[in-house]
């Protein structure tokens, strides 16, 4: 059974009197398998958020069908096993971190020591145990994103829908969120995330689908999509300059074409994280 299954899912928004309708999603056939991390990619206005809202039953579909664990999305039961993190979540500023989780837990039918234990677990999981009694008005953007993840996980859902989970978060926070997604995957959760930060999606997703103007234009496994089957890359270390010429000759002799010789580059993100790790000063020790 697929965690999410849509068949010819179409959404048209009314633009107002005598202004017609805007086609936001065009016959989308999306199948997200249980236990996988699926990335929904696309530029702004491509239909990513519309897809998530349709799956959550927040808006009504124009035609087609959408199911979550085989339950039609229009039914409230379809959300029993779903956790959702909206893009740039705000939450209730007047509640503390623990109160926020208690509120969402109670909405999911949780109570008593079971709920309290779960709140402690999640605050520890997202690294907010120190801020449990602080009101959300005093949380940073990254902290809000993390409390958002915690509320999405409060009832231990089987499926997580994350709308731009790393948008506006610094590289460390972004990496934490990606690590958390991978940990959730290990525990058997299914994750559907939308993003336009392609490099970050590449690290965590098993499969991706690219939406443009409401249509799915590309879909497949990340490793297959990004690997260039025509080229081979060999990375060596400690090769003397003299030996390089021999390698080039061997390649030519075997009929291969040498495209380039270069020093492999690291990513800016890896460089940034490495620099921070080397800086052993604790918080509060800066100028």
């Amino acid at each position, binding site marked *: 059974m697929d965690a999410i299954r849509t068949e010819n899912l179409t959404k048209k*928004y009314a633009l107002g009197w005598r202004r017609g309708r805007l086609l936001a999603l065009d016959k989308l056939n999306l199948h997200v398998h249980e236990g996988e991390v699926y990335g929904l990619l696309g530029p702004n206005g491509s239909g990513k958020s519309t897809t998530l*809202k349709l799956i*959550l*039953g*927040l*808006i*009504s579909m124009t035609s087609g069908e959408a199911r979550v664990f*085989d*339950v039609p999305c229009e039914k*409230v*039961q379809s*959300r*029993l096993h*779903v*956790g*959702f993190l*909206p*893009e*740039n*979540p*705000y*939450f*209730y500023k*007047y*509640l503390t971190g623990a109160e926020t989780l208690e*509120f*969402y837990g*109670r*909405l*999911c*039918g949780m109570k008593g020591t079971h709920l309290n234990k779960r709140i402690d677990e999640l605050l520890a999981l997202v690294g907010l145990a120190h801020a449990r009694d602080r009101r959300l008005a005093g949380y940073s953007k990254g902290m809000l994103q993390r409390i*958002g993840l915690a*509320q*999405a996980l409060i*009832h231990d859902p089987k499926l997580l*829908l994350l709308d731009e989970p790393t948008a506006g978060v610094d590289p460390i926070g972004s990496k934490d969120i990606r690590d958390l997604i991978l940990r959730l995957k290990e525990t058997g959760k299914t994750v559907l995330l939308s993003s336009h930060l392609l490099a970050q999606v590449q690290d965590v997703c098993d499969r991706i689908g690219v939406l443009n103007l409401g249509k799915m234009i590309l879909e497949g496994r990340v490793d297959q999509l990004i690997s260039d089957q025509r080229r081979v890359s060999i990375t060596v270390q400690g090769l003397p300059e003299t030996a390089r010429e021999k390698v080039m000759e061997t390649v030519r002799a075997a009929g291969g074409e040498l495209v380039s010789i270069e020093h492999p580059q690291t990513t800016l993100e890896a460089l940034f994280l490495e620099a921070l790790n080397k800086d052993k000063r604790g918080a509060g020790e800066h100028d």
Partner: protein
Amino acid sequence: MTEPTQKNIAAAKPKKEWVGFSVRRVATIGENTFTEAVRQKVYNILIVFALVVIASASFFSEFTFSEQLKFIKDFCLGALSVFGTLIAIVGTAQLLPNEVENRTIYTILAKPVRRFEFLLGKYMGSVLLIFVSLVMMSIMFSAALAFKEHRLVSDASRTMGNTSRVEEKQELQQQIQQIRSEVLDPNLVKAVLLIFAKLALLAAITLLISTVSTSMIFNVTVAFMVLIMGHLVGTAREMWSSNTWAKWLLALIPDLGSFNVADNIVLGNAIPWMHVGAVVLYGLVYTACTVAAAHFVFSDREI
């Protein structure tokens, strides 16, 4: 390996899950709505009410005791209604627009929560806010009356101690009894009950308006227009009693004037419980219909 029997097949089917209406979820959303109002310091408005009450109890001591008590009752009941109306309309008008603007509505409706539960929870939170406000204002009102009673009775007792004439003493004794009976007027409880019923209806009307529009200013403006129309509709019905269309159209607007009994209290007229019961029932029916209409609009609204 055994062949699967009908019973086994049935047992192998995944359990059908059902999410019914939950009072607990409604209470959770209602409690959160109330907490929001309290922590956003909505109750600061009651400080202004307290000043109004203190002013009404402190001035006009040159009038007779009966006039002074009538003034406090009239002034405080009026202020109670005005401040309650402000809390009911402004407090309710921002509920749905804020939820949509802050996207908190997404996180709630993404949980197994019915839209009706959300709407009803928001409304109940607003009604709780109105109820607590009225209770607090009523306590301040009662304190003002008790303070006035204490002063008037003390004055009368002092005068009684200074006089030796038996007739005057009897007259003052009667005056003290009258002060006490006017202060412990059961009609005041009825008046506050009717104000509560009116404010609960006003909150429901404001909620209905906010299911259509996302602008708080629009919601507040339209709600105040309905409030004015509701106070004029009684006169309008009398004027156009012969016009069938006008009669039907005017029937849609609740007669808010019927909830007002302050004039009767000031005049000293009795307000029968039957009348109070009938008006509260009228308010309840109107409120239920308005909340049902709000649900009808909200259930199909795209968020």
